[in-house]
């Protein structure tokens, strides 16, 4: 038995990609399957550097389709497996992850969003929201955490494993190229020392015989009749809706008396937080709302904010992919909607402050 990767709690200063590798180690991931793509590469680099010291494994596949499917294979054989990708790699990953939805295979995927469509930039965007929440041919039976800081990248990568294995829906940690490449401080720790129970993976197939009898296992992604499929998906939807309130996470402040509430997610929420604090200091009634889970979306929580404020300002580094999820959740509301969309480009607090002042 190898020693624990992290003893106690320590303050570190590192890139987000390195944070993800540490978190996966701390969450007791057994193996990473992956294919290189910027800006996610260093997750693989750090993992391959550290994993052998703790008896963990890595397999580089020939592309992201393969990385996704081998991840699922690892999970079916009882390993805590994960993968990471970005941009066009995320596109390819939708095929295996769609199978994970159908077969209810717990899986963890870390996405470092880059510019799109296609190759676009290797730098940064929030343009993989639609694909990560509802990609593939299916119904979006997924859980998507959108992180904002390195601390969250660490916390939610650990959490994603438990969420995936508890509910058996594919779970995504959705970050971006800025979070991947920037360095800032955070505290890393051993989750079990903090009382976080890590769910043990269990093999679905290839189990040993019990009393000489080997039970057959049938995990299906093909159905013969429409009715058969309908019954299965109805059950999945019930499971999803049942777990949604437990899984949904969000943050808000200063919304109660706000004339305008800035709605943003991920790294952009950092700028929004600073902007709202500055606007409040100037006496302007601004509020802050941030979905932490983009899927399931904190619909009830945003609706109650929409009911008491005059304007929602959607701010994101995409042409309204988060806003699409938000608008659906407040359908019927008469709240005024404003937008600040900069696809593939970072957004600063100064821009948000200026936009709010222009609206008020």
């Amino acid at each position, binding site marked *: 038995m190898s020693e624990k990767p992290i003893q106690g709690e320590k303050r570190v*200063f590192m890139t987000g990609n390195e944070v993800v590798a540490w978190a996966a180690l701390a969450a007791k991931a057994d193996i990473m399957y992956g294919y290189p793509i*910027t800006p996610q590469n260093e997750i693989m680099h750090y993992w391959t550097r550290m994993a052998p010291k703790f008896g963990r494994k890595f397999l580089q596949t020939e592309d992201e389709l393969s990385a996704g499917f081998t991840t699922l294979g690892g999970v079916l054989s009882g390993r805590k497996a994960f993968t990471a990708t970005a941009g066009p790699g995320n596109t390819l990953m939708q095929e295996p992850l769609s199978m994970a939805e159908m077969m209810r295979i717990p899986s963890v995927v870390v996405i470092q969003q880059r510019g799109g469509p296609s190759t676009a*930039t*290797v730098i940064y965007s929030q343009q993989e929201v639609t694909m990560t929440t509802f990609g593939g041919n299916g119904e979006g039976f997924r859980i998507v955490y959108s992180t904002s800081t390195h601390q969250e990248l660490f916390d939610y990568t650990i959490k994603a494993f438990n969420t995936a294995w508890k509910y058996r829906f594919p779970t995504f940690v959705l970050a971006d190229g*800025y979070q991947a490449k920037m360095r*800032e*401080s955070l505290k890393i720790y051993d989750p079990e020392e903090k009382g976080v129970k890590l769910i043990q993976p269990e093999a679905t197939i290839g189990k040993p015989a019990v009393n000489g009898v080997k039970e057959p296992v049938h995990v299906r992604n093909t159905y013969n009749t429409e009715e058969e499929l309908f019954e299965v998906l109805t059950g999945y939807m019930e499971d999803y809706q049942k777990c949604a309130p437990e899984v949904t996470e969000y943050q808000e402040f200063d919304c109660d008396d706000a004339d305008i509430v800035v709605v943003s997610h991920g*790294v952009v929420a950092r700028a929004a937080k600073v902007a709202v604090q500055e606007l409040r200091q100037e006496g302007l009634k601004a509020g802050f709302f941030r979905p932490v889970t983009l899927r399931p979306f904190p619909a009830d929580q945003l609706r109650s904010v929409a009911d008491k404020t005059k304007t929602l300002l959607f701010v994101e580094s995409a042409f309204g992919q988060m806003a699409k999820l938000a608008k659906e959740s407040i359908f019927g509301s008469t709240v005024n909607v404003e937008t600040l969309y900069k696809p593939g480009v970072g*957004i600063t607090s100064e821009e948000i402050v200026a936009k709010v002042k222009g609206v008020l």
Partner: protein
Amino acid sequence: MAKAVKIALAGEGGQGVQSVAQIIAEAANEEGREALYIPNFGVEQRGGVSVAFLQIGDEKIGSPKFQTADIVVALSDRAVRRTSQYVDGNTTFVYDSSIEGIENDIPRNAGRILAIPAVETSRSELHPRVFNIIIMGAVIKATNVVSEDQARAAIEKKLGYKFEQNPKLRELNFKAITRGMELVEKAQ
């Protein structure tokens, strides 16, 4: 709430702006302050202008990039042209006095403009390989984001293994820090 100090460092690949930004960020972190450093990165492997974005403050930093910097350091003609977008009336713009052909490109809207002979100093007094450490001294003097002692400690941490083999390198690097600070002091 004191705002974070925003620094943009730009130069040609190999001038070492990224390692300077990283050492300063780590020095600030060691002092218990909040630092955020992000390099610009693109598809080019070499040949582009390298820009490092660095913010240091006492509270968690907001967005990783920024519109205008408190200090911009440009170390080549292309870097001067590239970084003038980060300059406003509150910016201190520092550039190397040996850069030619930029008379019309220097952002005159900057609050302060300082030309420092860092290239010349590294060549004639120290060694070209500590050029970026001179720049580090200059940044520290112009911003006070970390103490000289902490900067030395951070260099020791980063390059200590090389200093073990050749103790003269330590002296050279520490001298470069001090000279960088003096260059800014003189230019002010």
